[in-house]
């Protein structure tokens, strides 16, 4: 699965109006909970922290940990709206090019040093200096940004060269780093920046935290342990601490839950485990997610082989032969939502529900291909331009399991319309290589199956289809200047309604072009012991995520 850090978030207008008035979601929730205090939550996951250095890390759980140990200006609330965090309020001026944030007064880092707006400005400005080098992973958070300043301890001013639609969502993804720790690494050409392991003793130095928890122990690929940060400026978590225990495979993780070694398993609990876990008395929660499974067809005009795939009628026929309901029933045991556009319904109003997908209809699919003149050969496979319509489907390991069953269903149905597909297994790295070959020209691949786990704000998922992403995030080879223009425009529309209207248009545009047939949106499945309560699920990563601190502030033993 393509693990993408969750940078961003929800409706801007909501955020703007909510900014000055809405109480910190996590704060209010934690303050009204009635559960007993204490206890240590044991969390199991199959995705380990890959690095504690935020300029190196790629893993979801690395970013979830930053959410809990470093301050962010804002975070998401339960309805994917922007809620205050270290910034209590904010306002935009100068046509959206100047943003002023008012931060929490009298806050401190865990080492006792003051935590002020100047720390935020320092982090932003230092990252900007190195955004084309070692801090490149954060470059997306700083688009069009000129710089930041802190006129006083509780005021932060960020200036942009142009209006940016998703400033708050960008700031949600930016952790404020302790200057007293990181300053020695932001020096010279920044070569030291990525070498700092940022881990606690015995191998590192005591961690300096500005969030509700501090990391007290970390063993790579084994576990990470956290205790409450006694100097945190927000509401006190009900738990004494929590631990993340990393499992190599989901079967072992599920067994550990059954055996009582962990209390909670998040993200990527396999659908096949749901029934057994329920029978064993565990609380199993499923919620629609932002992630999506895609059947990719090469639409790049430079494609040199099997150019019949550039014919819209062929892609339409393939969608007619895609039995989404059967895939969800058989491959996902019902634990997925039917696919339509590149923005999942779980993303609220950003999703265009008006896009109507083609129904499963083999007769119509056959009719389309007949009309296009692709006659069947002696073995039933159609012939296009003198060659059989037989295609390799590039298949990365992330798709194993549910993807295998999905593939089998599609293979059987496509055979009925005279199209033969076969699975071409390769690892993730080789998959991207094969798709973009040769040399990022996307000339040779025909089809692939893969997935996306996008952030809340639709900007990233929309960007995947732009020409600028060829060789980067594009896994379809799709490139259309008209679409690119729409993409560039949506990123500057401050008014949410106008941006939403354009984003809906873009979804329809991509749906019609069909570089992707969105098969389904898998549910997030997680399970926990009945002894615990207070989990706040989200469509990204489930309860413990990089969007909000809500769960681990509220969770408690019954």
């Amino acid at each position, binding site marked *: 699965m393509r693990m993408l*850090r969750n940078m961003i978030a929800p409706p801007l207008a909501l955020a703007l109006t909510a900014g000055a008035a809405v109480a910190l979601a996590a704060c209010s929730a934690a303050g009204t909970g009635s559960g007993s205090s204490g206890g240590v939550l044991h969390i199991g996951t199959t995705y380990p922290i890959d*690095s504690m250095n935020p300029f190196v890390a790629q893993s979801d759980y690395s970013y979830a940990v930053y959410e809990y140990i470093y301050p962010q200006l804002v975070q998401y609330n339960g309805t994917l709206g922007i809620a205050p965090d270290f910034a209590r309020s904010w306002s935009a001026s100068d046509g959206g090019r100047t943003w002023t944030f008012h931060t929490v007064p009298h806050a401190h880092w865990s080492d006792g040093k003051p935590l002020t707006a100047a720390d935020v400005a320092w982090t932003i400005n230092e990252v900007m200096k190195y955004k084309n*080098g070692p801090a490149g992973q954060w470059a997306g958070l700083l688009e069009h940004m000129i710089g930041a300043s802190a006129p006083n301890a509780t005021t932060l001013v960020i200036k942009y060269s142009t209006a940016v639609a998703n400033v708050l969502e960008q700031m949600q993804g930016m952790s404020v780093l302790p200057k007293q720790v990181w300053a020695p690494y932001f020096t010279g050409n920044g070569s030291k920046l990525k070498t700092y392991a940022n881990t606690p003793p015995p191998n590192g130095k005591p961690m300096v935290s500005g969030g509700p928890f501090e990391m007290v122990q970390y063993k790579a690929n084994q576990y990470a342990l956290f205790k409450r940060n006694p100097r945190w400026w927000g509401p006190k978590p009900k738990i004494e*601490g929590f631990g993340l225990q990393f499992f190599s495979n989901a079967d*072992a993780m599920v*067994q550990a839950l059954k055996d009582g070694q962990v209390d909670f398993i998040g993200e990527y609990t396999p659908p096949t485990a749901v029934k057994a876990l329920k029978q064993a008395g565990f609380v199993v929660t499923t919620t629609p997610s932002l992630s999506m499974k895609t059947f990719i067809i090469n639409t790049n005009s430079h494609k040199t082989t099997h150019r019949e795939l550039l014919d819209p009628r062929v892609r339409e026929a393939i969608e007619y032969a895609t039995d989404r309901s059967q895939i969800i029933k058989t491959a996902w045991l019902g634990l997925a939502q039917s696919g339509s556009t590149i923005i999942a319904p779980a993303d609220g109003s950003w999703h265009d529900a008006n896009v109507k997908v083609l129904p499963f209809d083999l007769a119509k699919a056959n009719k389309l291909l007949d009309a296009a003149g692709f006659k069947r050969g002696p073995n039933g496979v159609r012939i296009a331009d003198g060659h059989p319509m037989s295609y390799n489907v590039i298949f990365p390991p992330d798709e194993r399991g549910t993807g295998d069953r999905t593939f089998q269903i599609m293979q059987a149905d496509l055979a009925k319309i005279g199209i033969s597909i076969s699975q071409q297994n390769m*690892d993730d790295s080789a998959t*991207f290589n094969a798709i973009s070959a040769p040399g990022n020209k996307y000339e040779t691949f025909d089809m692939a199956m893969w997935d996306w786990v996008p952030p809340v704000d639709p900007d990233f998922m929309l960007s995947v289809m732009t020409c600028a992403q060829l060789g980067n995030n594009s896994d379809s080879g799709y490139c259309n200047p008209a679409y690119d223009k729409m993409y560039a425009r949506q990123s500057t529309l401050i008014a949410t309604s106008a941006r939403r209207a354009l984003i809906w248009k873009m979804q329809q545009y991509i749906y019609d072009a069909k570089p992707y047939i969105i098969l389904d949106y898998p549910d997030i499945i997680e399970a926990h012991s009945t002894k615990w309560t207070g989990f706040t699920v989200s469509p990204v990563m489930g309860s413990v995520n990089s969007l909000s601190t809500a769960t681990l502030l509220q969770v408690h033993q019954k």
Partner: protein
Amino acid sequence: MRGADYVIRRIGFALLTIFVAITINFFLFRVLPGNVVSDLARVPHATPQLRHALTVEFGLDKPKWQQYVIYVRELLRGNMGVSFATQQPVSHLLLNDLKNTIPMVTVGTLGAIVLGIATGILSAWRRGSAADHVSTNLAIAFYAFPTQFLGLMLLIVLGGLLPTSGMENPYAGVFGPQSSVARLQDIGLHLILPALTLLLTLYGEFTLIMRSSMLETLGEDYVLTARAKGLRDRRVIARHVVRNALLPIATLVALSIGWIVGGAILVEYIFSWPGIGQALWQAVNQRDYPMLQGGFLVLAVSVVGLNLLADLAYFKLDPRISQ
């Protein structure tokens, strides 16, 4: 003099083998399809600058022969490089992984050797008996079981009784007191299932080879002579048969011990054991060249080194070689 020649030749051959392995390791992973920069740069709004910065940072902008020269030069200085994925020194990472792997794989492998030799002796000694049939069939069955199947079965069946993942209870000692003895006990308990899986997977091979070797030796004239002299059966087996039958086992033992540092990828995967096997598996997926080169170098050195030791032991054990 003949002995010294033999030893020098074997050492020279071992060093050459290691050098060839280093070279193959270097080029093998680079000819695989895939690209570490593509993987690491696939973040939202990745820019060409980020890809370029990563390419330069990893030295991948240089020609391959130049990368190879730099690699060999640094290796001779004892520098195994920095992991692309974690930016930490490879030697440090591998050492940590080895510290986790060696105890578990050693227990499993030595257990397998002891059990395999014992059951092999028993089967040969009681050839044709019920004990022989049970022992031989069990050995074949366990030898044939896929490791992952056996491991998962043990995980499911013994899950409630023994820890099934990791190598320690992470919470003890941090959220409460834990004595050193209690910690050792805890690690020991975590070690049982992965080591047992490895033991059961490996022991069958030793059983079958030991049995076969024993049967061959039992047919030798000197065994008949020993029996004709009126020696007791146990004495004949212990003094004349087992010692001679152990010769082919020596190679297998040396190879098995050599593989100890390579870990047991499947076992480590099933029981989430944080060892070198898992680290290499991750490194392959991430195209983390320095980590792969370092890991496979350690593996090559240990296998070649143990083979060298086996060769030298043969020289000592088998007079036919020295003559």
